[in-house]
């Protein structure tokens, strides 16, 4: 082909601000759109902070999850203060005195307004292995008093620090959610793409299977499966099995999203155009279909995480999922199962608040991602 003068009029130049928009990569456009969703951005930050706290739980928490203290049972949350005797002070807590109500024989805690315990950072405390590797005693914060403790969220019936246990529990609960989603992602992607790509008999079969699973009441099924796990098994193994059980039901939603996208993408003109250029199936799937699906899949996965977390929490709460000594939010909530303990120590509900916050954050995040997933919508 020879190239001579152009056949059609050349279009005029445009401003450079628009040029940025015109040459922005798809993920940049998704990020720009996501950024406008304030609640989703806040949720993302919250989840990142929480994730870091969970990873470094052993360092951030002032104690270890199993260190109990008989003289500190059902202690209320310590109030962090900055004003002592009318003057500004570095952050501190007051020491508490343990008393017993003479009539009901209940243990009461009272702040000793004379004894100031300043919060210190990088203090030496109980032994632990940093990230399970490096033995150390360094904790992010604490109070240096042998008899007093700082319990930001109070303690439980054995005097264990709830804040510490909450952070350790975050590791288990969050990772169970993520691993569960990963499992259901594998299942959902595989079955969804088979259904969407091959269609016909495969599609009908997988669709019927999905309908079937959706028509089974989740919790009873989970409960049945979870109850089948022997009590004596290794807690870690049980944990993995529980996540698999959760994902057995959770994959249908992902499979539906994947199938739907596959079906609509397969009929897109640009996929046909690529095929007519001689593109192989592999190229069409990897270069055209998967990139177009990734953002949707990520959004769907994000929205599936809270389901998993709620499932784990519910099962453990009922005593069918994870069991002590494993610390998860569901396990922690077992302590708050009856009215008596809640009215005595309402702070035992704090793992529940953590669950709500995380579930909400994932929902907002997922909503934001879903809205931003298609930056080319008309």
């Amino acid at each position, binding site marked *: 082909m020879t190239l001579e003068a152009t056949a059609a009029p050349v279009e005029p130049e445009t401003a450079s601000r628009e040029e940025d928009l015109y040459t922005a990569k798809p993920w940049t456009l998704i990020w720009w759109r996501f950024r406008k969703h304030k609640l989703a951005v806040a949720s993302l930050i919250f989840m990142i902070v929480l994730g870091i706290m969970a990873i470094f739980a052993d360092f951030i928490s002032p104690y270890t999850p199993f260190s109990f203290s008989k003289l500190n049972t059902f202690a209320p949350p310590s109030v962090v203060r900055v004003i002592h005797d009318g003057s500004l002070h570095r952050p501190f807590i007051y020491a508490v005195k343990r008393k017993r109500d003479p009539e009901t024989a209940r243990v009461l805690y009272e702040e000793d307004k004379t004894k100031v315990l300043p919060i210190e950072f990088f203090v030496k405390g109980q032994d632990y292995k940093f990230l399970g590797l490096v033995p150390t005693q360094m904790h992010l914060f604490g109070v240096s008093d042998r008899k007093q403790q700082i319990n930001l969220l109070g303690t439980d019936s054995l005097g264990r620090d709830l804040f510490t246990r909450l952070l350790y529990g975050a590791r288990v609960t969050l990772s169970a959610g993520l691993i569960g989603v990963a499992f259901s992602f594998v299942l959902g992607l595989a079955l969804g793409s088979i259904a969407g790509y091959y269609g016909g008999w495969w599609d009908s079969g997988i669709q019927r299977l999905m*309908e*079937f699973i*959706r*028509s*089974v*009441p*989740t*919790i*009873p*099924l989970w*409960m*049945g*499966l979870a*109850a*089948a796990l*022997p009590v004596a098994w290794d807690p870690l193994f049980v944990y993995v099995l529980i996540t698999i059980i959760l994902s057995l039901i959770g994959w249908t939603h992902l499979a539906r999203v994947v199938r739907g996208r596959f079906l609509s993408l397969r009929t897109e003109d640009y996929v046909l155009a690529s095929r007519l250029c001689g593109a192989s199936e592999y190229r069409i799937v990897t270069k055209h279909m998967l990139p177009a699906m990734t953002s949707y899949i990520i959004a769907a996965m994000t929205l599936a995480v*809270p389901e998993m977390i*709620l499932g784990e*929490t*519910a099962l453990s*709460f*009922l*005593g*069918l999922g994870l069991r002590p000594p494993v610390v998860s939010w569901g396990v922690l*909530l077992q302590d*708050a*199962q009856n*009215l008596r303990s*809640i*009215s005595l120590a*309402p702070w035992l*509900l704090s793992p*529940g608040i953590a*669950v*709500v*916050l995380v*579930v*909400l954050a994932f*929902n*907002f995040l997922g909503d934001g991602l879903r809205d931003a997933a298609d930056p080319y919508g008309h």
Partner: protein
Amino acid sequence: MLGFIVRRTLWAIPTLAFVSFISFVIIQLPPGDFVTAYVAQLRNGGEYVTEIEEAMMRAQYGLNDPLLVQYWRWISAIIFHGDFGRSLEWNAPVSDLIWDRLALTLIISTLSMVFTWIIAIPVGVYSATRQYSFFDYIFTIFGFLGKGIPDFLLALILMWVAFIWMNLDVGGLISPQFEGKPWDTAKIINMLSHIWIPLVVLATGGAAGLIRVMRANMLDELRKPYVETAYAQGFSERTVVWRYPVRVALNPFISTVGWALPALFSGDVITAVVLNLPTTGPLLLQALKMQDMYLAGSFILILSVFTVIGTLVSDILLAWSDPRIRYS
């Protein structure tokens, strides 16, 4: 239409078979079996049971047969004789134990579904027609909270609130002092003071989701040309909204009735445990924990059957309400 119902009903049969099989597999999953548990019980009671006796019992109950044969024995007893087997722990036929509780579960689930609809539809329509208004935001926040708070936590909190502020002990379905007494006004009032918590808990969870679905459906429908056509006929906004897009947006709603049932049953199980209600939940939990296989299996089976039937009914309702499906 009739053909559709027949076909749809026929399709439910293999589903039911599959559901029952899964239920059976689940109750077979725990290591050991009915005889192991029974022998352990006898031994605990001080009786001496030899290995041979144990093996004989196993043979007697047919526990050495292949899984499918056992399954057939179990399911045929249920289908042909209504015999669900015996509960080990209660030492009574399963059917004696479950029907009252199932009925109550159904009542509570149905009531909360009705509540859910009464709340969710008008609110969803309002939110969609007044998008980004103050109340739309309020309802959105409510929707997210309802989605975020697990049922059991909400039940706990409500119970706690009722206890602290109203000094009510709302656990159970009736207060202990009315237990076993004949029904009179006082007992009914007492029951009403208890039943609102499970209803609120279940309806909140359901309504939160449905409000968002309804709102999204309505926003989709409101954009469609037939709405403009309706306005161009001179109808008032209220008439247009309630006669046209709401009517269309309700269709996917109807189709979710069937899926709402499993969700409600699931929610009911946990809520009932927390609130100590005499529904299926606590008994199922107990049965699972004690490996009371036939009791647990029957519960799972019957709850699943209910949901399969629920899905069937909602499919038929959907076809009936949407002419596009009816005639295709």
